[in-house]
């Protein structure tokens, strides 16, 4: 360290004033070091890696448009008479919350646009989170070391649904009030604590005068703060773990092949934000969403046809619609010990969602337990190369979609001219057999695709050129693959079933037996990738064909 007070030539002085200011800041916050580190982060290129970004950008749009809306929204349930410019509701008695939502729509400049931006962005937010999670699941990106990030992502999904639902309820129109009434019914169906919880939440009997302001606080403060916290954790872990990549030549668990963040990805990501914003803005400008003026003020007596929650709560609503009130002669609603147990609400509202979320959270550990795989994975699986996982995912997806479709059962009935009852019966059947069919079909398709890959790796691509050999045999000429393409078809892991292993006491306990059984179920019909020896042999075979052809042509020449 030099203790010279006089400036010497080795001290860098920027030439421009902008440079000097930057240097001043950098010397105090150390920005260049951070930038150098981050700028060198490499991100692989694939369209399916961008849904997380879409979710992040939708969230930013939500914060911006939401802030605008808070300037004008008044979450009060006090009664008022509408005096705004929408004449079909003139002088109608309503809550201040609904009146201010109408004013945002009709009397605040740009208010309608901002409301629609906010709502479309909310739908897009949950949709992109969901698609992102599907991508992560089907490519096996949740494996070590990313299990905890999967959990954080799952929490984000639930939080995004909570944010959406609390927002859906705020305008206090007929639709949102009907939605709240269903939630109130679900809460009240919980044995013992249900009614108390409902009274606590609504500050008395439904709907009370508190719920909108309470949901408002949750919607603009608690839930977004939690989402922000989870996003920070999520991104932090992405940086720590580095990004996953699809398998390919030169890619392995020790590297990341792609472009650096700076400047390529910074530019792409920055531009992509504006693309997402643009898409949302176009939707908001040309397509109406949640036309609250159609629904009128909330009043517990009217219920409109076509009352549904926003899409992400739809699967719960669908499960409620599918639940029968009686099974045979047995009433699902029971009175035990003088208390009412409304299982026809409780079961469909909580059980399917409970199963979905439990399996979702636990899945990385389930698979880790079965495979005993303790290695880090940074190269993704192609979905076909993990047939059982892909099949499990599709079974869950189809199960979700059946419930989701049930939420629109009335619209399916009217638009496809079928009976509402038949739609319900079919969906009830599909609720149970749909996932089974999906599992079997997906697994078969995945195995078939793997066999096709193996075939192509070994024998090359079919060219469609049929050649007749001199002794009368017809063969189709196969074009060999180049090495890069072949790598994609053979360079994957295919775990074999792992038989039960005795523990340290030399005993195979029951749990281990169960694990071995599951492992067999997972991997017993696996299609192994073509080994180098097999490839060699296959090429030898081709060589023989070629040798024959060459010899034949030689013969013709010599004649």
């Amino acid at each position: 360290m030099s203790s010279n007070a006089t400036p010497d030539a080795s001290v860098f002085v920027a030439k421009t004033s902008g440079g000097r200011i930057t240097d001043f800041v950098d010397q105090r916050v150390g920005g260049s070091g951070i930038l150098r580190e981050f700028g060198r982060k490499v991100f692989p290129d694939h369209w399916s890696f961008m849904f997380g970004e879409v979710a992040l950008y939708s969230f930013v749009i939500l914060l911006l448009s939401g802030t605008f809306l808070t300037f004008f929204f008044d979450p009060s349930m006090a009664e008022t008479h509408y005096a705004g410019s929408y004449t079909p509701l003139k002088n109608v008695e309503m809550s201040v919350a609904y009146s201010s939502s109408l004013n945002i729509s009709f009397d605040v400049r740009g208010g309608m646009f901002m409301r629609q931006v906010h709502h479309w962005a909310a739908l897009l937010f949950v949709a992109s989170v969901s698609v992102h999670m599907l991508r992560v699941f089907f490519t096996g990106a949740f494996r070590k070391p990313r299990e905890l990030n999967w959990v954080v992502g799952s929490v984000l999904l639930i939080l995004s649904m909570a944010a959406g639902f609390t927002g859906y309820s705020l305008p206090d129109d007929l639709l949102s009030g009907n939605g709240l009434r269903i939630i109130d019914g679900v809460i009240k169906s919980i044995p013992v604590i249900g009614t108390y919880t409902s009274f606590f939440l609504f500050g008395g009997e439904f709907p009370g005068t508190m719920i909108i302001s309470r949901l408002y606080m949750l919607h603009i403060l608690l839930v977004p703060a939690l989402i922000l916290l989870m996003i920070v954790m999520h991104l932090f872990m992405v940086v720590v773990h580095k990004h996953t990549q699809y398998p390919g030549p030169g890619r392995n668990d020790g590297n990341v092949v792609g472009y650096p963040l700076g400047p390529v990805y910074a530019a792409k990501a920055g531009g992509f934000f504006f693309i997402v914003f643009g898409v949302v803005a176009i939707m908001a400008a040309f397509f109406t969403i949640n036309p609250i003026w159609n629904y009128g003020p909330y009043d517990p007596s009217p219920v409109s046809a076509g009352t549904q929650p926003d899409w992400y709560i739809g699967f719960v609503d669908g499960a409620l619609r599918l639940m029968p009130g009686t099974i045979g002669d047995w009433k699902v609603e029971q009175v035990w010990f003088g208390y009412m147990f409304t299982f026809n609400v409780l079961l469909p509202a909580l059980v399917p969602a409970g199963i979905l979320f439990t399996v979702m959270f636990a899945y990385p550990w389930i698979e880790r337990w079965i495979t005993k795989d303790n290695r880090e994975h940074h190269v993704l699986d192609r979905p076909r190369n993990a047939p059982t996982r892909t099949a499990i995912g599709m079974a869950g997806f189809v199960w979700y979609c059946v419930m989701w479709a049930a939420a629109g059962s009335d619209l399916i009935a009217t638009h496809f001219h079928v009976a509402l009852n038949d739609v319900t019966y079919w969906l009830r059947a599909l609720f149970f057999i749909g996932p089974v069919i999906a599992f079997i079909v997906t697994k078969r398709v995945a195995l078939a695709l793997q066999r096709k890959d193996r075939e192509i790796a070994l024998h090359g691509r079919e060219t469609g050129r049929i050649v007749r050999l001199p002794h009368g045999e017809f063969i189709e000429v196969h074009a060999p693959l180049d090495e890069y393409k072949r790598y994609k078809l053979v360079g994957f892991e295919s775990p074999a079933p792992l038989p039960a292993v005795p523990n340290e006491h030399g005993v195979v306990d029951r749990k281990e037996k169960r694990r071995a059984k599951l492992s067999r179920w997972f991997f017993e019909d696996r299609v192994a990738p073509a080994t180098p020896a097999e490839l060699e042999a296959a090429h030898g075979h081709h060589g023989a064909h070629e040798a024959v052809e060459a010899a034949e042509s030689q013969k013709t020449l010599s004649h």
Partner: protein
Amino acid sequence: MKALSQKRRHPLAAIALLLMGLLVTGGLYAVATTVNQAKADTTTYSASDVEEGGKLFAANCATCHGMGASGSQAGPSLVGVGAAAVDFQVGSGRMPMQMNGPQAYKKPAQFNEEQTKQLAAYVASLGPGPAIPEAGVLDEKGDAANGGELFRTNCAMCHNAAAAGGALTRGKFAPALAGVSGQHIYEAMVTGPQNMPVFSDANISPEGKRDIITYLKQIEANGSPGGADLGALGPVSEGLFVWIAGLGVIIAFTIWLTSRTS
């Protein structure tokens, strides 16, 4: 008086008293509730209208509704349904029915205005029933806000708050109301066609019905202030739109962004 008191222990006295009581309550009820009765047809139809209508009826309707509109296994009796019912069913093309089914579909009307009027005259002549509404209740100058409230309370559970229609059980449905004339809306309310209940004048007053028609016509004329309404079907069509159009366009962009230039 004396004779009456002497007869009071007569074996039939209790029965006579009961009959008297029933007559009085029944009579009072009948007087008090005339408001519930369909108003007799006040429109005057000429005898030739009735006669022509009878011929049309015999040729086109009697197969199901029976000769003299007394009903058959295939169709209900039309005695007392009134001119309003005929004007609605025939005027909107629902009758004659195209085929049997859970509900008659709206289709281009088979009879012209004159023939419809003759059929209405014939059916009205069979017994008193709701008449074709007067122009005063169809002027669309009522109180739209009140009409909206009445609509949400009485109609929205089947027809949807935005009058976009909705499903009923077993293939039945409540149709969308855009493009339906005020006269047909009024007639539907007083006659309860298909699976619709009757909204009598005691239930919704003629002024209330006028308000409802005003409201429906006003929201129809207003269109959708926020942009394309996606069928006004609520969150289902919005969800479908964001998944297919919104996410679809964004996926197209992601593919473009991650494609190599080479």
